[in-house]
């Protein structure tokens, strides 16, 4: 059995896709692309797909991850292209690597988020960020299935800053939706690195924290995009590529899986190559 990990996006209007919606769409794309999926045993067999850490509905993402199990060997590059073709524009498959390491979920330690605040002047956002970061704890409340609960939104935040609008546009490439929405008027853009903890601290919670700490109240809903997720470099406070270990393993001493792929006629080194980012 071959395992392949994929990075995909939720861009533009398709950021309103819920995780359940995405799951159904992805499983149908697997069928249309005739991917030789491994199925679970049992009365109603399901294709083996593991999803990691999905972004909330309405939040755009450049960095969602999942892993699939195949019964026959496929070249990750070709598979990426096939699946990308089978999914609607906006749900784009950007990268595929063959799996050589276990415990992928543990690799996803933190996320980089970008938050666009239309109608908020950058200076006002700068002040709020400073006040937020100056505090050790910022308690926020959120409605959960078990009622409202209070938790700290500050501890999980590794980094928080405002960035230049043009820098932001270059990175998200329209993931936030309609381009003309960002056109006129004041607009502050936040970039933040948030550790994945329990309970999860989401960009919403950090916004609640900014309101609690500095009365920052955006007039329209924030447009949120996940830019990356992966291992957290504690020294620099940056998020690194979660596919790194698989790429390294593929180029190092062939593991059992790599040996299998070699036997199937695909050089292990190619199997682990990054499939062109969009």
């Amino acid at each position, binding site marked *: 059995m071959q395992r392949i990990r994929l990075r995909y996006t939720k861009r533009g*209007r*398709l950021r*309103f*896709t*819920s995780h*359940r*919606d*995405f799951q*159904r*769409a992805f*499983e*149908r*794309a*697997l*069928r*249309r692309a*005739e991917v030789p999926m491994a*199925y679970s045993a049992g*009365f*109603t*067999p399901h294709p083996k797909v593991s999803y990691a850490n999905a972004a909330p*509905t*309405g939040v755009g993402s450049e960095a969602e991850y999942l892993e699939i199990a195949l019964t026959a060997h496929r070249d990750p590059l070709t598979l990426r292209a096939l699946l990308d073709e*089978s999914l*609607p*524009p*906006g749900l784009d498959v950007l990268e595929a690597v063959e799996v050589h390491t276990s415990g992928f979920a543990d690799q996803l330690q933190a996320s980089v988020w970008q938050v666009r605040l239309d109608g908020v002047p950058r200076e006002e956002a700068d002040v709020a960020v400073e006040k937020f970061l100056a505090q050790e704890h910022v308690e926020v409340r959120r409605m959960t299935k078990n009622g409202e609960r209070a938790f700290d939104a500050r501890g999980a935040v590794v980094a928080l800053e405002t960035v230049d609008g043009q820098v932001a546009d270059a990175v998200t490439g329209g993931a936030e*939706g*309609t381009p*003309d*929405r960002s056109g006129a008027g004041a607009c502050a853009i936040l970039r933040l690195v948030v550790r994945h903890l329990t309970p999860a601290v989401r960009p919403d919670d950090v916004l609640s924290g900014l309101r609690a700490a500095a009365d920052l109240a955006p007039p*329209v*809903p924030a447009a949120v995009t996940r830019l990356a997720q992966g291992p957290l470099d504690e020294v620099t406070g940056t998020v690194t590529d979660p596919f790194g270990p698989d790429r390294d393993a593929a180029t190092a001493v062939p593991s059992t899986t790599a040996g299998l792929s070699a036997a199937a006629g695909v050089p292990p080194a190619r199997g682990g190559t990054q499939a062109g980012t969009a």
Partner: protein
Amino acid sequence: MIMPVESVFPRLEALLPHVQKPIQYVGGELNSTVKDWDSADVRWALMYPDAYEVGLPNQGVMILYEVLNEREGVLAERTYSVWPDLEALMREHGVPQFTVDAHRPVKAFDVFGVSFSTELGYTNLLTALDLSGIPLEARDRGLDDPIVVAGGHAAFNPEPIADFLDCVVVGDGEQAVLEITDVVRAWKAEGRPGGREEALLRLARTGGVYVPRFYDVEYLPDGRISRVVPNTPGVPWRVSKHTVMDLDEWPYPKQPLVPLAETVHERMSVEIFRGCTRGCRFCQAGMITRPVRERSITGIGDMVEKGLNATGFEEVGLLSLSSADHSEIGDIAKGLADRYEEDKIGLSLPSTRVDAFNIDLANELTRNGRRSGLTFAPEGGSERIRKVINKMVSEEDLIRTVATAYGNGWRQVKLYFMCGLPTETDEDVLQIAEMAKRVIQKGREVSGRSDIRCTVSIGGFVPKPHTPFQWAPQLGAEETDARLEKLRDAIREDKKYGRSIGFRYHDGKPGIVEGLLSRGDRRLGQVVRAVYEDGGRFDGWREHFSFERWMRCADKALADEIVDVDWYTTRERTYEEVLPWDHLDSGLDKDWLWEDWQDSLEEVEVEDCRWTPCFDCGVCPAMQTEIQVGPTGKKLLPLTVVNG
């Protein structure tokens, strides 16, 4: 007035973070079509007047969407009812009713086509018109407002919403939408001579489009209709239904829409035949879609193959009014199960008659992995009442079939019934309990297990236009509920079998509103409008439906009339009465319907004309149609494997 046709999406997008399930409003479904606005000279907005999750899988809308978009110079987009949370925001922010394809405002289209499967969608039509900025009453509309066309089964009596419609099409829509397109195109190309009135007149004169404003309804002092008469030269006295012949010529949908949002049917549906002549007297669908026209086994095979490739669905639904009645159903099921064994594609037959079911068929349906429950609809509990409704299924048939099912590993059988049928007594309904007990008894006997189950599902009967029961009195809501409670108690109190029988029922109140609208006339327009203005929406949804609102608004709106809700629902009609839909020709001979109604009261059954000589229901000669059934003798061959 020139309206710029811009996407409303930027304005809509700002509202979406605040609503439930925003994905339903963003479009972008696989196989959806967005055409350049200026490339088309006739533009249709098609609506299913219910929530997206119900409307998107609707086959009627999907078929017309494709048929229209395949045409050069024609554009069709879809719109669905928005939930009240978004409706409130759209009103607050001035966002109009939009299509999900290109998010264009509905008001900008030439034709606004609305498909009604049920009368409970009427208030949603008014919401959509109002959100679009189209005047509710047809007479208030101007040259630039879309022509509002209704179709679908509920449009066979459109009189309760006649004030809000410009046109109505009865019957199959495939060819009708193209004919309407041609008329509108010519009228536009000529510079819209004679304005809106002329366009409607041209449509009416085709004989296949009903334009309510060209007909006057006259009433007798006692409230009954005296006559319905054309008020404009050249308009036909009766408007005929449309019938598509040779389904193989119309293999739609070829590319079914695949939504991102979850919907009520997640499968590749193929209509294996249209029409039904079993002759169940309560069944409007069977009466108005005659004659039976089968799609050939090879035509079905092609549609399934292309459709699965285009969608990636994991289930195929073989649709029709009684799917096991297809002359080659066994070969179809086996052929498809063989073809898709590797792909784990399940098959389903949504409507199966007890007497047409057999275990070979059932085994083919479940071969590729799934074994859901079996569902049958005996409709009536006693042999007597089944004769009244002409549902010719004997208790022996049923017991034999369920015995086979339980003996072959099924654990669950669902049975559908109706309450409030003509001549029905408490005893007829209590027989349902006896039938369910015998089902369980037999099931335990053949399976040797005690964990088998049977679910009884029952709803109130609503008399429908164009059926032999169109003259029948409807049972009141309270009487329906009382009868259902007696049945529930009879099931629950049974020590031996009661725990193995599930009981699900719908109370009688929604049925009264459905009955009011089903057999209503133009005087009910003001009731529908009053309910809408009072906040009535999504009447098919229990959580939104308000019986109290409907009754309050009806009392008020009908205060000056001689008629009331009971007059429309629980009153029995006589032979002489002019019915509000008599000028809409479904092909059924009214005298034949009356004779069938009389036969019903005498418990006389009628055979199916597919297997016995014609019994002169009138449809084929009136509509110049004929029965089209197999067998063709062909088989579905294995597909050649093309694999890259």
